[in-house]
């Protein structure tokens, strides 16, 4: 494997670039993909390289442009449709859920809709009620949609390439705070295919599953836990649909304790799905204690103090995991450590 390093942004950008070079049917569009900020750099250079036919900014028309993407796909193109916030996907729900997800089935396998829908979840600097939502569980709910939520540069690239090559609609769930994260980023194209979770840290006391940006907090929580002698196994599901239940269950079979940390609300959320799928699998085989963490069950407030309370953090995750391990409320909350805080961004956006 190559030793090259890169950012999450680089991974996303390179994936689309390489796929567009390889396959002339790949097109990329969305509001602002061709503007000077180029979706935080993730679409930088594409229009210069491939021209305005294959790369273009759109009017503000999420519903119609999703339908347009479906039409393109029916004609043999492979569109990548980009949204700067996941919240705006709510305007595209009808086309995504009623058409894209169902076309293959309701037309008896006679058509496919290979579209990729990219969207970014916002966090910090007062993103507030309508720029902070992680709504991927809506899509996990619907048969016919695949959902990827990569958490590092390597997987951002690999999932994006797999998504573009997939013959089905794929939702790419990205997170604004992951964009500057750096890590190994092999240059040659590769796929990170659906249905394979990854163990990022091994431990026998408790399994931590973190979704999207919550995974970054879980990795920090794992260090806090190590400080007090609790060995956490940290798992990145990478793809939420299809979900690698076996992979997660194998870890929980060992630890007997599962904490799922979501980047969304827990009610009817991804954490509910993961926890119940694992419990179903292990029932009669292993006694399991479960804890779900996610957004506070409120709307996201922009004021900094309340915003901090709204999200699970490395410290609150560690505290919950330790309580689960000890089977009681210990009252422990680890102290801040300088090497375990997220670098949030300074506004305006």
């Amino acid at each position, binding site marked *: 494997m190559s030793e090259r390093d890169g950012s999450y942004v680089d991974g996303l950008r390179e994936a689309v670039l390489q796929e567009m070079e390889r396959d002339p049917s790949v097109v990329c569009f969305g509001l602002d993909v061709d503007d000077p900020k180029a979706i935080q750099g993730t679409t930088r250079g594409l229009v210069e390289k491939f021209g305005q036919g294959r790369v273009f900014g759109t*009017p503000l028309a999420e519903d119609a442009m999703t339908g347009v993407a479906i039409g393109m796909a029916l004609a043999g193109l492979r569109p990548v449709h980009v949204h700067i916030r996941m919240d705006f996907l709510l305007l595209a729900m009808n086309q995504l859920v009623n058409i894209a997800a169902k076309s293959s089935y309701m037309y008896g396998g006679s058509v496919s809709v290979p579209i990729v829908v990219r969207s970014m979840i916002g966090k910090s600097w007062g993103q507030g009620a309508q720029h902070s939502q992680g709504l991927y569980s809506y899509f996990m709910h619907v048969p016919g949609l695949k959902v990827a939520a990569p958490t590092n540069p390597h997987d951002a690239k690999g999932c994006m390439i797999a998504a573009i090559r997939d013959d089905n609609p794929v939702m790419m769930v990205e997170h604004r705070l992951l964009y500057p994260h750096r890590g190994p980023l092999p240059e040659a194209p590769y796929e990170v295919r659906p249905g394979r979770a990854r163990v990022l840290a091994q431990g026998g006391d408790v399994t931590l599953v973190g979704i999207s940006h919550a995974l970054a907090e879980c990795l920090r929580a794992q260090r806090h836990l190590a400080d007090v002698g609790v060995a956490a196994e940290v798992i990145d599901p990478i793809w939420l649909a299809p979900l690698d239940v076996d992979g997660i269950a194998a870890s929980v079979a060992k630890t007997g304790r599962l904490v799922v940390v979501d980047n969304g609300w827990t009610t009817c959320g991804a954490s509910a799905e993961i926890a119940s799928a694992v419990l179903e699998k292990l029932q009669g085989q292993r006694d399991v204690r479960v804890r779900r963490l996610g957004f506070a069950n409120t709307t996201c407030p922009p*004021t900094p103090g309340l915003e901090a309370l709204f999200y699970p953090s490395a410290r609150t995750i560690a505290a919950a995991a330790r309580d689960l391990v000890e089977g009681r409320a210990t009252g422990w909350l680890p102290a801040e450590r300088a090497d375990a805080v997220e670098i949030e961004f300074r506004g305006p956006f």
Partner: protein
Amino acid sequence: MSEAARIYRQLYRIRRVEEEVARVYPTDVIKSPVHLSIGQESVSVGLCEALRPEDAAFGTYRSHALYLAKGGNLRAMIAELYGKATGCAKGKGGSMHLVDVAAGMFGASAVVGTTIPHAVGYAYAVKLRREPRVVLCVFGDGATDEGVFYESLNFAALKRLPVLFACENNRYAIHTHQRLRQHLPEICARAAALGIPSERIEDADPFAIAARARAAADAMRGGDAGPFFLECMTYRWKEHVGPGEDYALGYRERSEAEPWIHGDQVAKVAAQLPPDERARIEEAVEAEIADAFAFAEKSPFPDDAELWTDVFREAP
């Protein structure tokens, strides 16, 4: 107060409030996005000059000007930007979601186009109850890309609703010019095609906007005249979001802004007033602004428990 004095007070007040927001922004006392309307004030001011206090207004995330012109509370606005408990949404909305129901300023949304149908629905209720009120619906040129714009206008025309639609056409949606998003430049012509009388005002003159808006509002008030559509050309001087300028990004030239900066409505109206009257207005506004920022500074942040309130309206 003369109309010129009233309009000047509003223009000057909004301009200075936003200049203060821009000035303090780099100190991080406002930790949330701000979409300034510096350069565009005269549109909201002209429109609201035609309204009565009991009329309703719906705007966008770029609504500092509309909120203030409609009579929204200044202290509560600045406190909201500071994330304080005394803010108009207790710090739980932020700059993009200004609200002052008592002043008839309904909550703004960060999702483009979403409040256009709210204005229409509000007007439906007003008409159903035969109230002599009108509803002002303000949105940008970008919002007219969205399907909900056409659907809402069609319904308002169909039901002859008392809505004054006002498009603040600053030519841009973030960094994308209208010509890259729409085949036809005249937004008012599209309103006309849906059966709504419409007019375009080219220079953002607040007196012209007020006169046109007043004629339309008075005609539709309490009756069956139905909606009116005003397209107000204007120009955003600052970056889309944030306190700075953005000419260096390359999507627009400073020369495009120059005629607007040269024809600044704040300066133009100022020149119409006798110097002592102007000085009195400015002095009073400066004191009010200083008070509002001091109020925001010394107000407390919300208690932790406030995270959990307001999810639902609790039974009394």
